[in-house]
Structures are given as C-alpha cells and as structure tokens.
C-alpha cells in the first residue's frame, strides 16, 4: 500500500511532501517518545504520533520512514514543515485519535511487526 492510498482511504490532510506519496508503506509504528522511534522504528514504516516538533522530521529521515501521520488534527510547527521539505518527509494529518487511526490502518492491512 502506498501513502497516497492511505490519504484517500482515511481522508488525510497532506501538510508536506505531496510529491512523495508514491512511497510504499511497509509497516506502521505508533509512539510519542522520539527516542523510542529512533531505537525501534523500521524503514518504510509510517509513523503515527501527536508530536508536532521539527525533530519528528529528522527522526523519520534518519530511520528511513515512509511518512508521518499526526493524529487528532494536530498541526505541525512551521519549522517542522520547513524541515520536511529539506528531508523529503511527507507529513499527513488525521482528525482521528491515535487508537482509532491505528485500528483502521491495521484493518487496512498495515502491520506493526
């Protein structure tokens, strides 16, 4: 499944990186501790978080994640948007709370392990 399929299926708002939505999503990871994502995030996974700080982009880039989905309609900080352009990391926004979104992603076939 590609990022653009998730955007369409779950009505995600594309805040950054519309040109990279062809990326394949090979898994999912949900965490709000960036140190944990640095330790356990896997390449190609989409990351579900409520963090809006610019460091999310660096973490996603470092781990080779396919993209970031912010939950509950949270809006990324301006500096995060600027950074996402540099690092080519799409930032998508869902209005759903994390539990609900992760459940639906799982239902759509995305796995965390």
């Amino acid at each position: 499944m590609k990022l653009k399929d998730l955007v369409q299926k779950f009505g995600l708002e594309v805040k950054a990186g519309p040109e990279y939505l062809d990326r394949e999503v090979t898994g999912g990871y949900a965490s709000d501790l960036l140190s944990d994502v640095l330790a356990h995030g896997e390449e190609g996974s989409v990351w579900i978080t409520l963090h809006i700080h610019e460091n999310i982009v660096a973490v996603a880039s470092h781990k080779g994640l396919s993209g970031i989905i912010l939950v509950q309609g949270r809006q990324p900080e301006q500096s995060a948007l600027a950074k996402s352009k540099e690092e080519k990391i799409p930032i998508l926004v869902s209005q759903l709370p994390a539990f609900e979104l992760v459940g639906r992603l799982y239902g759509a076939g995305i796995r965390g392990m």
Partner: protein
Amino acid sequence: MGPVSVACRTIKADLHVHTCLSPCAELDMSPLGIVREALRKGLDLIGICDHNSAENVLALKKAGKAEGLMVLGGMEVTSSEEAHILVFFDRDEDLLRFQEVIYAHLAGSNDEKAFGQQVIADEEDGVTGFCDRLLIGATSLPLGEIVETARAMEGESLVIGAHVDREAFSIIGQLGFIPLHLSLDAVEVSPNISAGNAMDRFPDCGKYPLVTGSDAHVPADIGKRFTCFTMEDESVAEIKKALAGKDGRKAVC
C-alpha cells in the same frame, strides 16, 4: 581557560531541589527542612525548582538567608512536548514575571487525591496556602518559546535541560535529540547515571556543559548528586561563566 581568579572559591551546588509545593514531593520538603538538610549535607548552594511554579522560592531564599545557605530561584517547566527544563533567574521580579507567563499557559486544577498536595509555606515552615493549579500538567508552550521567554527577561537567565538521560520527561527522551537551535546553558544528568556514562550513551551530552543534581523530592535525597562550581559568587552570571569555562571559572560534576 585562564588562571583562576583569586576571588574564586568552590561552591558545592545541588541545583535541582523540589519543595512541598510540587505535588509529588513530600510535605517535609519545607523551607527550613530543606535548608537544614542541605547544610547538613555540606552544600553551599541549592536551586529551587518546583514543577511549573515558583511560589515557594521567596520563602526558601529567606530561610536560606537566616540559616546561611545560598538559594537560587527557579522553576522546572514542562513544555508542550512534555520535556522538563530548569529555568533560573538572578532577579526575583524576572522569576515572578516568568511564572505569570507559565501560569497563563497551564490549564487545569490539581486533584490532591490523585497527585498530592501543593503546599505554599513561609520561611518559618508555616503553611500559608495551597496552590490549586495543575502543576503536574504540561504547559502549552513549546521548548523554544519557554527559552525565549526566559531570555527576554530583564536580568540574566540560566536554562538547563533537566535529567536528559531519563526516558520520561526529558528533551532527549521526548524529542530524540536536543533541537539544534535551542539555547541551553547546560544539560543535567540524573542521579541514575555518571557524567562519563551519560556522555558515552548520549552524544548530545558532550555538546553542552554538564551538571548533575539530585531532583530531590524527599529530604534524604538532597545533595545526593551535586556540581562543584569554581566562581566568585552564586549569581546566574557567574554560574554561566563557570559552565562556559570562562575567566578561570569552572564547573565539575
């Protein structure tokens, strides 16, 4: 580093001490209780930093003056990212103005049963009131704005990333690494780890001056970890010089 100024002396400091105002601290973390315990432990200076409040700082300063202990006034602020930073000021006016900004961005009221009492005390350990704000909560201010607010005050400010080796409520735990443009004077490591191990495990610890403090919530923990500053007096300006290793000042932990 230049020669040590003749006026310099070594000050043993525990810059991270909570009072009974913090809901998670014990009631016997009263102004006189803290000051006497700190003196018993051989400390020269303590930093008072309750969660998101400075309402016991003036009482601590008076108690310290009466008993012969230097007290630096500050606060342990919880950012919107749920990272803790310690912020200190030389001037009480700056600290109180800073507190107004923090309070304006801190929602909710305390639930004593769930989180504990938030006791406001005077310098003789009399209870003068209870703070009913949700001090255990997070402010809506991102780290960067907290630092900017501190720097915008009239006098000097000292900003330290708290217990960065901890997973919970630390800048590195929450944000993976220390944001590049954050203007910190130092980072603090907790009593759980030595300074050497911290630098091995967390590369960011090697990029900033290091301090350690006890993060004491009970009297027995006061002074459990400390930093020795060689400097002329206990002002924020001197501490910053010591952290930067300027003019013969130094900080060792």
